[in-house]
């Protein structure tokens, strides 16, 4: 009898203890889809999410990796079916299209109340806006393109420094090419995807002989000359024609293997210099796309947005504000080998410090792609023009005039910002 009573008392006590836990509101389950696949950032997003889950009780986030292509398809299909995650990652030039497709929630009001938007660099933040200036997400990391130089090969060709202008760059590319050793002077990606356009744009927006131009004026002399420089590299055997099938990784691998003296590389490649393994001395400098003291580059990077129909929009935006806070931005840049999207974030890089400084400087000359809802069509016109020069030997002026035939009606209907 005593035992039964004791059991009863214990049972009631346990019930009482568990009641507050039941009564307290359970955090909303939030799904986050990302395509970070490098080992450093793939682990970092999991750690970041775990940390956020432990410091608040409003939402509980589960981060899921979805390959980039699959994620993009999912957004397109989800725009109609409504099958979307709560928070989604997107490549910055694609964001405008997905905003137009209704994939992301307008979170302008909450972000403006946050009061930190003025700390973000304009280029990356612009990519989160629609044509009316409404904001649909936050830029989480950014990057740009610069030039990687194999100093051993440059020295062997009689140069003790990196190129500082287009003319010198052309000289060096020619001088370092060595067919007998299978070494090309220059490597870049010109594949028929957004990656190709990303790498081509600095040369088309070349600031040679004055100001650089935007993609609505690619028949300008400076743009034609930029493409001609690259076309001549291919025609003269200074750059492999295979660049039309190379991704940016492929082009960097050519450099890392010592098969290319100079290469157009992204900020994230700084985390991959282990592949060089001390085989040669290397350095980074601004892309020498124009006259002395000028450079052009393209802004890349990833944004995070809250998807339409998310369960707890306010909670999701709170997470984005935390993810893109001053401190977290700085930490992420170091871990993932990127550049912070905020001016007030300090990234204390622990490796390739000189290299990072070059990329941070290059950001001053880097331009965003679009933002434009029909950017993918503009992009296709650009890489197609370049491929026709490289593969078929089309005249650069003619190729770019062909590209403008496709681009002009698009930008006339909806001008670039």
């Amino acid at each position, binding site marked *: 009898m005593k035992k039964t009573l004791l059991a009863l008392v214990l049972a009631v006590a346990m019930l009482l203890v568990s009641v507050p836990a039941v009564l307290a509101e359970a955090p909303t389950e939030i799904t986050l889809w990302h395509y970070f696949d490098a080992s450093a950032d793939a682990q970092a997003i999991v750690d970041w999410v775990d940390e956020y889950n432990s410091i608040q009780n409003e939402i509980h986030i589960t981060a899921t990796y979805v390959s980039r292509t699959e994620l*993009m*398809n999912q957004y*397109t299909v989800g*725009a*109609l079916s409504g099958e979307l995650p709560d928070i989604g990652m997107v490549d910055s030039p694609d964001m405008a*299209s997905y905003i*137009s*497709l*209704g994939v992301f929630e307008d979170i302008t009001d909450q972000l403006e109340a946050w009061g930190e938007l003025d700390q973000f660099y304009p280029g990356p933040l612009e990519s989160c806006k629609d044509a009316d200036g409404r904001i649909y997400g936050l830029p989480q990391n950014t990057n740009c393109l610069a030039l990687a130089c194999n100093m051993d090969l440059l020295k062997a060709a009689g140069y003790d420094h990196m190129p500082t202008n287009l003319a010198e760059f052309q000289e060096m590319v020619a001088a370092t090419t060595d067919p007998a050793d*299978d070494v090309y002077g220059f490597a870049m990606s010109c*594949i*028929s*995807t957004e990656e190709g356009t990303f790498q081509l744009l600095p040369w088309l927006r070349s600031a040679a002989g004055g100001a650089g131009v935007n993609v609505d004026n690619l028949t300008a002399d400076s743009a034609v000359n930029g493409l001609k420089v690259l076309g001549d590299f291919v025609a003269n055997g200074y750059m*492999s*024609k*295979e660049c*039309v*099938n190379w991704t940016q990784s492929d082009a960097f691998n050519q450099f890392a293997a010592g098969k290319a003296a100079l290469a157009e590389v992204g900020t994230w490649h700084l985390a991959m210099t282990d592949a060089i393994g001390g085989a040669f001395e290397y350095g980074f400098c601004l892309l020498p796309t124009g006259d002395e003291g000028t450079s052009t580059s393209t802004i890349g990077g990833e944004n995070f947005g809250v998807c339409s129909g998310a369960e707890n929009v306010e909670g999701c935006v709170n997470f984005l504000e935390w993810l893109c806070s001053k401190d977290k931005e700085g930490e992420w840049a170091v871990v993932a080998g990127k550049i912070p999207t905020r001016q007030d974030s300090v990234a204390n890089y622990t490796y390739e410090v000189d290299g990072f400084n070059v990329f941070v400087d290059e950001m001053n000359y880097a331009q965003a792609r679009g933002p434009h*809802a*029909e950017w*993918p*069509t503009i992009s*296709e016109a650009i890489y*197609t023009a370049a*491929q*026709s020069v490289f*593969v*078929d030997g089309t005249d650069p002026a003619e190729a770019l005039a062909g590209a403008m035939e496709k681009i002009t009606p698009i930008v006339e209907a909806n001008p670039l910002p």
Partner: protein
Amino acid sequence: MAAGKKREAYIFVLPAFIYILFVLGYPLIYNVYLSLRNVDVKNLTKGGDVFIGLQNYIDLFKNPTFLLVLKNTFVFTIACLLFQFTIGFALALFFYQKFRLSGPIRGVLLVSYMIPMSVTGLLGKNIFSNAGLVNNLLSKIGIIGPEWLVNTSTALIAVIIMNCWVGIPFNMLLLISGLTSITPDVYESASIDGANWLQRFWYITVPLMKSSMLSVLMLGFIYTFRAFDLMYIMTAGGPLNSTDVLGTYSYMLSFTQYKFSQGSAVAMVLFGCLFIVGLFYLRLLSKED
């Protein structure tokens, strides 16, 4: 009574009919609907798209890229069928001869068919790269190989070769099973009558294999015509659309450029071609019966 039975029969057909209506009918009808409107990135969810009749189809047939893609699709399909079928048939006749190790070698040949197409695409990308296996072997016999995947004239050839590598064992397998259905007695009596191997092949094997051969060719056409993954991985349709086929082009329009209606119109052309081939196949089958 007869009417009642008929009604009963319809009830039995109903589940299959509903299944086909939803799984095949709905997407098809929606695709036709989409291809007759101007749905794109600007109006997919916001609305405002309008009926434009056959304009998407007219635009397509005026577009030189689409005409190139259409040509690529036919060249790819016919070339693949030709080589897959003839080589597959030759191998089937060879392995039909019972000799030691014919089984294991046949099994090894099937490996290429068992490998996922995406892996085959990656293999192809490496094998046909400038310093890849093919050019390496060619250089050993003193030939400087072309830049296979870089030139618009050779990229499709490389893709065709990779597809044949996968398709040959598939053809061989189906044709061997056709060969085994012919009773050996026929050959025996033909031999006794003095028929040589060519006569036996031409007057016995070919006529008796006709339905197998037709099935293999038709299935092959359908599989090859709607190819996608091989070129998507191996060349992404490039360079300059030289390896783009209807499948990859439709995907590019719909999922990369968000021109949903134009993508649907391309898919309808793809469907139309296969539908005609399908009808042709059904007619041949009913004639056989």
